[in-house]
């Protein structure tokens, strides 16, 4: 886990110059080559039901939440009575759980368990 997270910033900031084909393409990092392979990419996505279980567990652990109200369809605001600060805290807890950063413009839209599960399950960086 630690090794992977150490690699994260490196991958994020790795710059690959766009070069004509005549250049030696094998100088490009082998990591990037593997990421574009279909099999690799498919293997990076988490199983949706596993994601759902983990998301539900994170939300249930949230102090303000009544665990009995938590179900896969629960809406943070309307069903669980959470406000904007709570929602941001939950997004942060999900980032910790799944080991990747959720961009602010995506975090804005995650206001129900279903949306959180959909987003995380479709994100290859989720662990």
């Amino acid at each position, binding site marked *: 886990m630690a090794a992977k997270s150490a690699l994260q910033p490196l991958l994020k900031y790795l710059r690959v110059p766009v070069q004509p084909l005549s250049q030696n393409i094998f100088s490009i990092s082998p990591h990037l080559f593997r990421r574009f392979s279909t099999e690799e990419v498919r293997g990076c996505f988490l199983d949706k039901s596993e994601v759902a279980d983990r998301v539900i567990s994170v939300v249930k652990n*949230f*102090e303000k939440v*009544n665990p009995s*109200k938590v179900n896969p369809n629960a809406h943070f605001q*309307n*069903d669980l*009575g959470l*406000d*904007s*600060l709570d929602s*941001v*805290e939950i997004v*942060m*807890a999900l*980032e910790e759980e799944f080991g990747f950063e959720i961009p*602010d*413009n*995506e*975090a*804005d*839209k995650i206001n129900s368990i279903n949306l959180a599960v959909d987003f995380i399950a479709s994100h290859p960086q989720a662990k």
Partner: protein
Amino acid sequence: MNLLRGKISSVMNINCCRRNLFSASSRLPAVPLPAKKEVHFWYILPDEVNSAYLLDQYLEILSPCEKENIFRMKGELLKKRALLARTLVRTTLARYQTNCQIDPKSLKFRKNSYGKPEVDWQYSDDWSLPPLHFNISHTSSLIACGVTVDSPIGIDVEDKQRRLKTNILAFARRYFTLHELEMLTGISDPETQQHEFIKLWTLKEAYVKALGKGFSASPFNTFTVRSRDYNKKGICHAPHLISEVPEIIIESSGDPNKPLGNWKFVLLELLGSHYAAICMEQDMICGGNGRVAINLSIRKTIPFVEDGCISETDVVVIGGLTTLLGSA
């Protein structure tokens, strides 16, 4: 007392031929519109509203869509809070009658292209209303509605004692700017640090809500909210050590010299239990030095029952140039 009022109003309803005119608007005392640079801040305390009869009255003035949303919610407290929030918006705006009484039920609302709620004046029954702007915020113990004329407004209210589940500095590191993180890191007392965090959160929320474009359009780490003269001659003064009420300013975190438009802030401590932040657009004509005060009128309400100005002892202005107005 409530039963008596109920009997009187039902008699009025029976005798009146124009149902709309007497059902709700006559029980809302008219108030003059806010002037320019003026904010009216109305609030309701959910714990003080427990009469089932009154709550039914409130349900009556909501639109079918609003009622539907409330029925779908789970939990009585949640439903009550949502009901009071919609009631507060409708009854507050309905008070600002110009030439005739407005039935709070007749107000129509829409969302701007980013989802911020606003009044749809075009389809309201009374088309002669001025362009009122409003914004609401609720906590479990206080619901507030800010109203202005001709200026976008954003408000946020939080319980002072609210505890984060996450570590405050970890949160600030992730979502706030470096400047704000440094300010919070510099506070050694945990309770003070928590209070300063909540104040900062309410100010930032109020700004984003005033802008009306959503959290994603102005991520919290792209702008810093701070007290003016915070960095005096290179010495960092934490806000809680500044004795005069500091003016609050906003700047871009990327380039501190880049102006972010003209926004004024007010930060209040209400009833000793809540922080409230108000953000509105500054009048360009008054110049860019930001020395013009916001005129603020704070009113407590239980719609259809009583309205009143907040007592002086219940409010403390802790940030922003503000003049507190007495009752109208």
